[in-house]
């Protein structure tokens, strides 16, 4: 296979849009594409007050297309056993409204989209957990996916190896909240709350969160399970299940993952070298201000890297700007350089 890859091409900057406001700000700040979802369980950020109804989606697509940008629709949960047709209707909606691509994980949804709307471009969602080129080729051969979003668990050399062996375009996460588990294969939230990313498009849902003041700080609970206890002077984070502090053999620690953010600015030239087609910013659940500022930094960085690849260096003002929006105020290259390996 070993498809030649255009390593001179600038990767597309793909930014999150949880609302019409975030979409317009992302487009104005230089996103090449925005991704969004409908207001229901058909996408993996199914939170109250987030996402698009039909009228908003129409306006969003018009806004982006008028400026030569793309709109990708996330339809990346798994069709429900009791009502799969709702996912088909969402596919039809995307096609009717003129979305530039669908981001899907479920073979049922991919199969429907591929057969019913063969002209519609398909991207394989990170929720499909395709960690190898065999897995990506499986979806490409059967459903003609044109791009795969890679799980946040691969090292840079694994990404490069994978990219050399698939004919699909490769999209990687550049910035945002870090999932330590393989996406699409995590039922931790389901175990504690009955709702999971695969089934309901949510993880550690706000409806299950309770904050309780105690004599010595604040407890964060998820459906009654104590996820963390913050001392009065400690910064509080959202109690995402895998980022809690637990006891293992008498030792209290972030046993799974500390609250950190992924930031791959430092390896941008290597991502160019690998020939990744797109870099994705996480955070449809974040504020429009986050989307605008993070997009602006990444636009500058990608343009800078394209202009002077050999002399590219991360600018201090970028780091400062992104630092304000990082979970836990800490940056990491995540799995890409895998310090724990």
């Amino acid at each position, binding site marked *: 296979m070993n498809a030649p890859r255009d390593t001179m091409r600038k990767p597309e900057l793909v930014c999150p849009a949880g609302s019409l406001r975030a979409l317009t700000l992302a487009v104005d700040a230089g996103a090449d594409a925005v991704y969004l979802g409908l207001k229901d369980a058909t996408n993996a950020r199914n939170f109250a007050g987030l996402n698009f109804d039909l009228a908003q989606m129409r306006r969003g697509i018009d806004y982006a297309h008028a400026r030569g940008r793309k709109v990708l629709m996330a339809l990346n949960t*798994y*069709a*429900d*056993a*009791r009502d*799969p047709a709702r996912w088909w209707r969402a596919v039809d909606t995307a096609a009717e409204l003129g979305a530039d691509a669908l981001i899907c994980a*479920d*073979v*049922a949804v991919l*199969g429907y989209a591929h057969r019913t709307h063969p002209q519609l471009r398909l991207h394989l969602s990170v929720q*499909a*957990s*395709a*960690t*190898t080129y*065999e*897995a990506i*080729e*499986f979806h490409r*051969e*059967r459903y003609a996916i044109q791009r795969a979003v890679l799980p946040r*668990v*691969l090292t840079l050399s*694994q990404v490069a*190896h994978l990219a050399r062996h698939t004919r699909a375009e490769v999209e990687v996460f550049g910035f945002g909240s870090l999932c*330590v*588990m*393989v996406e*699409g*294969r*995590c*039922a*931790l939230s*389901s*175990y*504690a*709350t*009955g709702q999971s990313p*695969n*089934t309901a498009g949510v993880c550690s849902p706000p409806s299950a969160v309770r904050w309780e003041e105690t004599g010595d700080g604040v*407890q964060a609970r998820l*459906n009654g*399970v*104590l996820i*963390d*206890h913050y001392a009065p002077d400690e910064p509080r984070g959202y109690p995402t299940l895998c980022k809690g*502090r*637990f*006891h*293992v*053999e008498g*030792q*209290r620690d972030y*046993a*799974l*993952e500390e609250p950190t953010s992924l930031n791959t600015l430092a390896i941008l030239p290597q991502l160019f070298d690998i020939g990744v087609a797109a870099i994705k910013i996480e955070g449809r659940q974040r504020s429009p201000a986050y989307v605008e500022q993070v997009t602006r930094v990444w636009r500058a960085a990608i343009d800078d890297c394209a202009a002077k690849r050999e002399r590219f260096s991360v600018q201090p003002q970028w780091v400062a700007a992104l630092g304000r929006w990082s979970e836990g105020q800490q940056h990491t290259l995540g*799995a890409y350089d*895998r310090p*724990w*390996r």
Partner: protein
Amino acid sequence: MTQGPTTMDQANAPAARTRISIGPLLYYWPRRTVIEFYARIAESPADTVTLGEIVCSRRHELKRDDWVALARDLAACGKEVVLGTQALLESEADLREMRALTAQDEFLVEAGDSSALRTLAGQRFVLGPHVNVYSRPALEEYAALGAVRWVPPVELDLGAIACIDPADERVRGGPAGDVPIEPEIFAFGRLPLAFSARCFTARHYRLKKDECGFRCIEHPDGLRLDTGEGEAFLTLNGIQTQSAALHCLITQRDAVLDAGIGRIRLSPCASHFDTVVERFDAVYNGGADPHDALEALRELPLPGELVDGFARRAPGLQEIDT
């Protein structure tokens, strides 16, 4: 469906045997322990045994050839043997190992991920619990590849399974599209809930993954993780995260059978597993009282509490309602 004169006979006929399936060993045990464990399984009422290392490619007490030799021994004892592929593949070495399993045709293979599906297309195979099937159309997609059996994701409830693959209208798979696909439900054991590139056992010991010292071997039922209040919550098992409680569908027998499910998967634990297998067989195939069996299981020193929330479309950690 046949209607009419045969209905009466069917009603009086003994119910079909519920097949007992032993899931893959998810922990890292010393070689001798593994061999002795499967020697006891050979004598047990189990019908099917799934073998192989599906969690971590670094574990090496048994290599592929050892698993195949074990598979032949169990097959000689009358067990149906399935070989499982690793659930999280990352390296080219992982892919080679997976291809070696899918290329053999002596034993049925359980697909751990979609990489394996690509190489299994056109053969008979089992869909493992880490391949996401949440609807009938999804199962039909995999049926078209040749799937003949299906282990639903652990979070899928009985109603959903019945809706996807009901007994009277099974999805048809196999290479010729004529084999009714049987669901096999995860019915006992700590629930495999998540996978990560990161090894949490190594992290706990402040070791690097590639220099982990194989500390998993010290924890035959995994390493328990408690909440700040001392409640058992999860289990660290290398790159896999499991529940601390044991999922147990012994009192759900009638609901399992009503959902058209004729195969139950029991996931190995380090002690008293033989008793677990016998109790499940007695309840599902011998007419034993499910609640008596539950009490008997609760008296065993099992590694955790017994829960069954997922079967009831509830949070997985919910205890069994008695």
